[in-house]
């Protein structure tokens, strides 16, 4: 008899199999919803105000130097015949531009996120693997070999199209130019500089020899091993500007960090006064209606200036508060009378 019972088909009578597990059944009652909306709303308003105020403290100075307009100082550089062109953009600050000041260059209508452009690099090459120097991966095509079939290092469209305008900033004090020191260290991601990218090992003690048998990207004026001859730690694939460029921008309108102003007299920021920015104008953008600009900005805990987020929080927060009031009315009108019936 016992055995029979055990062999029984009888289902297990457990809370799980009988679907009777203790359960929390949230019911949207007025007592929860109205305070809920109110709390969320107030919290959002608080965050919104904080964000908005923080954003207001951030100073931003943007200057377009593409030279489309005729009166632009760089207009003359836009003609294709002008190979090496320098132009000067002047601006004045009425108050102290609090430091540390971040110096960005910005491009618009530039699709670094174009898919075929994005895949066009050889990560193995960039880790310093000289094997890939000889034969770059196919993805770099057609920026893998030059017309004489020499391998290009670094290969690919991204590297090839590297931004190559350079800037010098001067403060004009009493008619004399005082160079503002620009700090190019640590502007790229720490992981890119220290882990992801690697230079090839020097051959016979010469860094340049490691690149033997390769050619520089067609658009580049200098080879990779000549990017910064002054600082071996900023040369080759570990060149900060190169690293910044290689981290593709998400959107067609972007800016990339060029330098920081952290040194000398300018450690606390750019004092009020007149400044002159010398632009070594190389990078063509007019072919795609692009714009180039420089941006000076300081940062806060929330990064760069961003009014949107603060405003959005304020809007949503007030919406929630309004909603809770509406709910209150709705409940007063319908629900409570309903409860009286019951």
């Amino acid at each position, binding site marked *: 008899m016992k055995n029979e019972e055990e*062999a*029984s*088909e*009888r*289902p*297990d009578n457990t809370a799980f*199999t*009988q679907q009777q*597990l*203790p*359960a929390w*059944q*949230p*019911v949207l009652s*007025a007592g929860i919803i109205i305070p809920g909306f109110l709390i969320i709303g107030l919290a*959002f308003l608080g965050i919104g105000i904080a964000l908005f105020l923080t954003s207001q403290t951030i100073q931003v100075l943007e200057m377009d130097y593409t030279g489309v307009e005729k009166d632009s100082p760089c207009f003359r550089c836009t003609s294709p015949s002008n190979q090496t062109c320098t132009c000067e953009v002047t601006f004045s600050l009425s108050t102290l531009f609090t430091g540390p000041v971040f110096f960005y260059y*910005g491009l618009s209508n530039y*699709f*670094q*996120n*174009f*898919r075929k*452009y*994005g*895949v*066009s690099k*050889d*990560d193995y090459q*960039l880790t310093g693997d000289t094997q890939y120097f000889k034969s770059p991966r196919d*993805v770099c*095509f*057609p920026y893998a070999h030059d017309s004489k079939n020499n391998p290009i290092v670094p290969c690919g*469209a991204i590297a*090839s*199209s590297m931004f190559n305008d350079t800037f010098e900033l001067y403060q004009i004090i009493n008619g004399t130019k005082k160079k503002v020191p620009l700090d190019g260290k640590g502007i790229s*991601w720490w992981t890119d500089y220290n882990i*992801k990218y690697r230079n090839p090992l020097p051959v016979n003690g010469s860094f340049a020899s490691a690149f033997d048998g390769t050619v520089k990207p067609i658009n580049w004026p200098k080879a990779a091993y000549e990017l910064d001859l002054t600082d071996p730690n900023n040369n080759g694939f570990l060149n900060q500007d190169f690293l910044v460029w290689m*981290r*593709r*921008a*998400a*959107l*067609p*309108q*972007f*800016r990339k960090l060029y330098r920081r102003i952290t040194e000398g007299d300018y450690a606390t920021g750019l004092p009020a006064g007149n400044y002159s920015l010398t632009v070594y104008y190389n990078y063509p953008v007019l*072919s*795609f209606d692009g714009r180039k600009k420089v941006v000076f900005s300081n940062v806060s*805990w929330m*990064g*760069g200036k961003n009014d*949107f*987020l603060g405003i*959005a*929080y304020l809007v*949503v927060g007030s*919406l929630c508060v309004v909603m809770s009031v509406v709910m209150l009315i*709705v*409940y007063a009108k*319908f629900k409570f009378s309903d409860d009286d019936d019951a």
Partner: protein
Amino acid sequence: MTWTNPLTLLRQGWTRHWNPERPVRTVVSNLPFEDLKKREQPNRQYEGNAIKTNKYRLWSFIPMNLFEQFHRMANIYFVGLAILNFVPVVNAFQPEVALIPICIILALTAVKDGWEDFRRYQTDQQLNNTPCFIFSRKQMCFVERRWKDVRVGDFVRVLSNEIIPADILLLHTSDPNGVCHMETSNLDGETSLKQRKVVPGFSTLGEPFQPHTFDSTVVCENPNNNLNLFKGYVERPDKRRTGFGIDSLLLRGCMVRNTDDAAGIVVYTGHETKSMLNNSGPRYKRSKIERKMNTDVLFCVVLLFFMCLIGALGHAIWLESFPSIPSYIVPDSNGNYTPSVLSGFYMFFTMIILLQVMIPVSLYVSIELVKMGQIFFITQDVELYDEELDRRVQCRALNITEDLGQIQYVFSDKTGTLTENKMVFRRCSIMGTEYCHEENAARLAVINGANEEEEVTIYQQTKLPSLFPLEELQDIHTGDENQANAQVTAANQRRSREAAGAQSDMAFSSPLETVVVPDRKLMLEVDREMASIQTGPYLDFFLALAVCNTVLLSSVTAQRQRVKGRRSSSYSGGSFHNMRQWFRKCGLGKVFTSMRFFKRRGETLRDPFSIDEDESDGFHSSDVSDATGQKDISSERKVKSGLSGSEEMCYEAHSPDEAALIHAAKAYGFTMVERTPHYVTVKLPDGALLKFEVLDILTFDSTRRRMSIIVRHPHTKEIIMYTKGADSAIMERLGNVFTDMSQVYSEAKQTAVKTQRDLDMYARNGLRTLCFAKKVISEQEFRAWSALRQEALSAIDEKEERLMETANFIESSFTLLGATGIEDRLQESVPETIQALRRAGMQVWVLTGDKPETAINIAYSCKLLEHEDLVFTFSTNRKSVFKMRVEDTLGELRRSTLSPGADPQFRGYSSAFTGPLMEPSIGLVIDGSTLSMAMSDELVEQFVELCKHCRAVLCCRVTPLQKSAVVKLIRQKLRVMTLAVGDGANDVNMIQAADVGIGVSGQEGMQAVMASDFAITRFKHLQRLLLVHGHWCYSRLANMVIYFFYKNVAYVNLLFWYQFFCGFSATAMIDYWLMIFFNLFFTSAPPIMFGIMEKEVSDSTLLSLPELYKRGQHSEGYRRSTFWIAILDAFYQSLVCFFIPYWTYNGSDIGIFAFGTPMNTVSLFTIILHLAIEIKSWTVVHWVIMIGSVLVYFIVTLAYSAICISCNPPSDPYWIMHKQMADPMFYLVCILTTVVALLPRYTLHVLRGTLAPSPHLRARQLERLSPSHREQRIREWRGLRDTCISPSPSA
């Protein structure tokens, strides 16, 4: 009848093709060829007995499984995309990456298939290696071999309780009568024994079988799957032929019972055996939701097409917009720039690859998983477990669980479905005199009411003490005392009930049902006839009852060692099983007490000790005392031992009616004590044994609706045919009663008229009626007929027709003996169930083969019809009359329904939750012949319209084919979801025709269950199965499907919006791996759990408010609008999830994947929390899976972006997640976006809950109340529905 595997059809077709000139199979003995090589064997073309149900072999598993899997559309889609991705001009990812999803899905499915196949392989191996005995000529004896060694033409011996290895033509048994018993429960679940006869002339009774002398040829049909049909003949070398039928075939998989050994020649082996051909496996139906879903998938395809088109056009226009080619546009391999139109064209395909998730292919896999889970929970429901049969609900169809929640029409069989199909003899009419068996009725009434022991006790003490001779017995035995004894008995009863393990009084009452208390008046008549003439209509009547059946006797202990775990469906088996237990509890002493008592009373003819009843104490003795029975114990015991030693015997009846009749005959002393193929022995009330020689049996079939047995009377040597059958089947074949007006027949005519009157009365009382008739056949007549019959039997072509013809020929000119009324009691809770189904908005139809009167009566008692209902009865043979009446009725109905002003259909829906209609409740009763007219082309529309108005429809006297035709008609014309429930072979058609077929495993075997999608044990389970599980499954699956669409669209659109900012170049800002993981791991478990475990309203509330079911009926959980709302919501959410980060980060120095990471995270939060809004009850499992999914996302993403330095170019996940998570902006964006994305949906839920709460929401609110308060509210709710109809319901 039974579902045929297409493969089988194919195989049959092939075989036919292979042997075009050979419609039959010829088999000769293998023995003379034993030493020959295989290709010289005569039976070489037949398959061996080894079976192989596994599809794959080890070496061919991968290619074959892949081949199988590529039959699925979804997989082809995947593969197509993967291939597309290998085309360089259109690829979106690295080619390998696109292979990941398809590989994972294929691998998962392959593992599942492989495991299942391995299990099948193991079972096959086990079966193939089962030992069996095959005759070997070399050793001149049966030697042990394996099942797989059995070949067609071998001689195989099967011992008692062994399983038969192949289909064997029975040539020899150890039984002196040449029969062999077989239990077919492995095949069809029927535990009653089936008797098989040897083909005569190939073995000598009592001697060992000598197969090597067998030199004949067996000719039989080609293999087919009909378990009840088999025909052929054995041709001897001298061309003499002996016919045989299914009753000589031992079927593979069955078990030999009661027979020491049986032997025969193998005719079908392996996959060609009838059992294997019947083995069709689980059935696949496509559910309504899935059909709907597939069209929505098509919408997704259209949507995808448009999105890709936008992408393609956008790309082309974007390319055109440049004055010259910018530096970031990469030329093609030739250094040329692709023309923008061509690029746009390529981009179209690239977009398809990028946005492929739009088509929710994972939905199909998820649905399969969800349904597995749903089925698990349905079968686990302890409320649907039947204690008595030890059975759960079975889900045989694996993928239509949610259809249970959408049923609109229920078609039910009556007998065995609504009723117990446990027949109780109630009344009889003999020679025009009605014997109402009042005492028996009173006794049954007591049993019915005896749910409480107290009641029994009270009854025993106060009313009708003579009916409960227990007391009388105790009076005699222990003197005049005591109520105490009665109490003891009651206690015994209770204990016995507990022992039987039954919660109801069913098991307890079943032994009581077999016992009939004879009618005193009738008893006297029988006595008188017995005493005087030894013949007469009364004796004939009871002889007919005892003889005219196919009931078998079996000894209990010999073979009935069934484990309780197996079902004991057979009427007698079940009841005796319980009885034995009862007996053990009550102790033997009592029986001997009663035996002494019988002796003392010693008056007449009763035989309470025959075979089975010796165990029942109280109730058994009731008939004895009542019958003032006389009894000779010693003679009785002698008979008993002579029959079966000291073993108990039981009747094995195929139909419960037969069992009821044979027990009734026994109550009057006519006990069938032995049945062999050639003899039936009946013990008469005076103890004499009458051994009838059985000359022929014309078995029951649904066309003739009668059965006959032709016997030779042992004393008079007359050839007598006893026939029983439906009253119409007998009455119209009485010998010229109604035509010949001569004096001789006037008496007979009067009898017939009176009997007919009684029959009508029985039917009105809801009894099942059977007529009994007799015919004396002269010797020549019989001989002539017999020759014809033999010829028909050995015919191969048109055998059925010819048999029918011969049967009809002999079955005529009957003399009417009488009629019986058998009660078939309603199952428990049938009226409640029907009412609940009704309240849930289902139309209930009952289709039965019974007479209209019987059916109407049952319909009233099970609340299908109410007394205030307007009932139309259609029963006519004239089409014109019928047509007129239908039109009249329809006109009337239209007027009455149109007058309130609203369109009835619309009203029907809008009032679904506010109140029922004030329409008069209309019932329709229609009989079979009228029904066939109604379904003729010109009337069908009107009939269907009429049916739409009816609350209940009752179809009487319908054939199985008509049943299915009705179901099909309603299903097609009204486009409704239909459910058919039935228990017998006659319901199989209907069950298969309906959207959902439910089999009740009852008294009539398993054919209905085999054909069904779900199998239950009691009709009342339907209520829970539909209202609770159906409802749950429906809303779970509907919500899950909607959610899945939403989820995929919401996620894919993120990518789509990004295309507007990357020149439509199919760039993804999310790492491909994370994208794939997102669907596969991060967001797949919650919806699956949701689909399995969501519980919006508890089962108790669903049962108390069946109205809630209507949501599923009207498909409110999943309609086109729900789908589009979900899609719109998905668009909105994806816009929010994209543009809030976009505006936050636009113009900044953010990198492409750093931009995608917050979006991915935000999507995850949105998608998970969206589900959280939908989840109505949170159990531990919910919490674990929801929180787990988020954790898994963060862990995997962090781990991935820490490990993947440059593992997956061009994407660059390295350290991005870490950097983002160190930035407060990331969190600010996540919080804002999630809240904004979910705010509308949440607000909508809140507002809807407050302003217009759905019935479900209200029901949910009820659940929070205290039980008493809740009941009051439920009553109010219902009351509201019943009263507030008169003001316009649509307001």
